[in-house]
């Protein structure tokens, strides 16, 4: 999960992933679309490949880079579970805040009683 997160943290790598959503592409094509030079693209693709986010297939004379859905799905699931945890925490915090507000009001009334 951390590897996926780290790999996607770099803006150009995120752009590559976005681009590859439309389908597999060769390195030079990615470079042209995103206006990056080939060494840059290759470097980013290597990181994405190490993180398991992209894989490479040979087609005719070309090497095509495409997305592997698993890490992104895992990241999505992880985020959703983490959101649910915080949602449950915050529901509890909501209730506590209501209690604290009520307590505060009753304290504020005391001197007058």
């Amino acid at each position, binding site marked *: 999960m951390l590897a996926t997160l780290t790999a996607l943290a770099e803006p150009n790598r995120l752009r590559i992933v976005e681009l590859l959503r439309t389908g597999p592409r060769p390195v030079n094509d990615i470079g042209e679309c995103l206006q990056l030079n080939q060494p840059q693209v290759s470097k980013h693709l290597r990181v994405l490949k190490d993180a398991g986010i992209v894989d490479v297939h040979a087609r005719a004379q070309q090497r095509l880079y495409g997305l592997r859905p698993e890490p992104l799905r895992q990241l999505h699931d992880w985020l959703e579970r983490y*959101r649910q945890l915080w949602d449950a925490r915050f*529901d509890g*915090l909501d209730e506590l805040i209501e209690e604290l507000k009520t307590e505060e009001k009753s304290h504020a009334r005391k001197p007058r009683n």
Partner: protein
Amino acid sequence: MLESQGTKATPMNKTSMELKEDRELVISRTFNGPPRIVFDAYTRAELVKRWWAPKSHGEIVDCTAEVRVGGKYRYAMRTPDGTDVAFSGRYLEITPPSRLVYTQVFEQMADAGEMTITVTFEELGGKTLLVSREVYPSKEARDSALESGMEHGMKEAMDQLDVLVASLC
């Protein structure tokens, strides 16, 4: 939209979560109370105890917080399968009731490095918008933590994180 488990008239607000560039995860929610109260509930250990471990996820087994700059905190919960998960760190900045900055280590994979979390409490017409920004350690920070003697590989650390995530659900 139907609210789940809302027992009182006050409408429940929604928690949003967004993944940003540069390893930042942003969690936000509006609360029906002034920042003064929300800040207290968010920081004072005897109050944190009451919400940090939701019943659906586990029970609180440790909750200490020395709320001063440089002070330490430690929160731990026992998940339904009996695993303890603990988070600890220290406070870097405390500006009640509007801002809080602290570090966080997930103790079960301490060698994965330290997160920095910035929480802001913004007053919005008697309510509070709470925004928590979690910045995950950089690859470099994690690599150097790994090199400094720890024998764990990233693979193992990641497996542990997956176990943690699974155990939290």
